[in-house]
């Protein structure tokens, strides 16, 4: 287990390094580089900009700038927002909860529904249900999340009036019920794509598990089919799904960003767009790096979780 942990940890560190290089390249692609937002300021002359460049060390070789930038990142100094001067990390911190709430809820929905569809599809292979689930998943994967959100708002809040059309809570009403009421539609919208993905993988994974020898043994023992599936198949089929949950993180974050935009949900995606609109590049860069770190961390945790549950992995 220790060897596995060390190996996996070093992989994550290398990945972190690569991600930071990509991030740094993007930062320098912005017009005007790190000083971009001052370029349009009429109070700044070219001389001022040149002097600032000198002072901030932006005329040093790129690799030195990179090391400097990465070192400050490591120390937790992610710069300050151009909008209100607050440290980037605390600005991001204020928006993390909303995004995690949305992502967590929709992932839970996706896992519950997707697992059920996947197992049923595998145990009733080539049935009408299985065919419908297959076609349904392909269509669901093709629907733009933001459009699905708009259609959802049109039907369920504008026509039927069942749920609010946006925001995380009604101002002046901080009750849990109010939060939940606002959470229903966006998390269902965000979960659609992931129900599709989850059910497809779960079907494959269940079919793999069913063909294993221990299932034959269980059947030979005379266990009922239901018990075989519930006790021996599902557990084993769910194992690779832990990894999938980690792998799906970036796409869930992408979905969360567009969902947050449509539902004016005050999370990281919304913050990212607002910051782009204000040319608030420190926050944009911060979110870019933060989301990548979140993804790397998520994958690491998923892999460790699988290793803990499944001895074949940590020993092999």
């Amino acid at each position, binding site marked *: 287990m220790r060897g596995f942990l060390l190996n996996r940890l070093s992989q994550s560190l*290398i990945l972190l390094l690569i991600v930071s290089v990509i991030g740094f390249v993007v930062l320098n692609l912005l017009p005007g580089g790190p000083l971009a937002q001052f370029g349009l300021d009429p109070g700044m002359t070219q001389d001022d900009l040149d002097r600032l460049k000198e002072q901030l060390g932006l005329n040093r070789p790129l690799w030195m700038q990179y090391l400097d930038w990465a070192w400050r990142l490591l120390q937790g100094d992610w710069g300050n927002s151009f909008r209100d001067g607050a440290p980037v990390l605390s600005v991001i911190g204020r928006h993390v909860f909303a995004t995690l709430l949305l992502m967590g809820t929709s992932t839970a929905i996706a896992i519950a529904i997707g697992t059920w569809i996947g197992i049923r599809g595998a145990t009733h292979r080539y049935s009408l249900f299985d065919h419908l689930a297959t076609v349904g998943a392909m269509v669901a994967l*093709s629907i733009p999340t*933001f*459009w699905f959100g708009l259609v959802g*708002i049109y039907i369920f809040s504008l026509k039927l009036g069942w749920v609010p059309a946006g925001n995380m809570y009604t101002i002046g009403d901080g009750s849990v019920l109010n939060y939940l009421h606002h959470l229903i539609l966006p998390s269902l919208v965000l979960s659609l794509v992931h129900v599709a993905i989850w059910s497809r993988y779960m079907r494959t994974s269940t079919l793999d598990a069913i063909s294993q020898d221990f299932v034959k043994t269980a059947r030979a023992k005379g266990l009922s089919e239901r018990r075989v599936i519930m006790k021996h198949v599902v557990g084993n089929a769910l194992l690779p799904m832990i990894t999938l949950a980690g792998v799906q993180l970036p796409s869930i974050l*992408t979905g969360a960003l567009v969902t947050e935009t449509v539902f004016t949900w005050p999370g990281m995606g919304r913050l990212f767009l607002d910051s782009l609109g204000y040319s608030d590049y420190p926050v944009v860069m911060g979110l870019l790096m933060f989301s990548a770190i979140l993804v790397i961390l998520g994958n690491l945790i998923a892999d460790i979780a699988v290793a803990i549950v499944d001895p074949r992995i940590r020993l092999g």
Partner: protein
Amino acid sequence: MTALVANTGPSRWWRSRTVRRFTSHHLALLGVAMIMLLTLACVFGPHLLPYDSLYIDLRARFSPPLTGDHYLGTDPLGRDLAARLLMAGRISLAVAFFAMLLSTLIGTLVGVIAGYRGGWIGAALMRTVDGFLSFPSIFLLLALAAALKPSPAMVTVIIAVTSWMEVARIVEAEVRSLREREFVLAGRMLGLSGAHIMFREILPNAMGPIIVAATLTVAHAILLEAYISFLGYGIQPPLASWGNMLEGAQQYLASAPWLAIIPGAAITIAVTSFNFIGDGLRDALDVRDDRV
């Protein structure tokens, strides 16, 4: 995959197993029909409609579908929605198609080199792939789109730059498994150059998975273009794309829902069709794939 190469010969390829399998895949055929229909409509449709896509008519603002000659209604400036939808389709489909070409090119190049060379070059390339995959694609796309002037060509490049990794992974795995096969060893013994072996000997045998991945990349690229244009950082007005037609639609959702529903339906139909075709090709070309 070898079947594909064997079947590209001149003799009755249309009766090959690959073609027979594809044509017995009903959803794939449906997809092909839809895409052909959409493409024809986008190419010839605008010439047949009574209104130009940029003709502003403030007297006809917010006409619902089927008012007069406005078959799909009009937008907040009174422009004909049908004409705009088809002109937007030209942009959206073209951007997606060229983004697919470019990203398949990048992905194949990276994948072949990483898979064939292996060693530290291969490791470095594949870790870079992992690095790109660690970013939520929309964050990277938006940051790049905000940084660079989003002309249609630039949007194409940006989408390609953020979506080549899947192809690279598939090609790398395929090439790595082919690297030790006899025909490659034979090539080496004949003294063929590395480039010749990589691109003339190995690559043709990996075409099946590449074609499937490329088809699915078109679907993905249509969605990505729609996302960034919807958020205002993709194709810029007055040029219409399916994504940016939806950009202002949310504020009129209560009064003019067709503004949101129609372009979104076009996106869904196009993306679904490409996903169906990809699925059919996967069956036909015998590509084993764990992806959805």
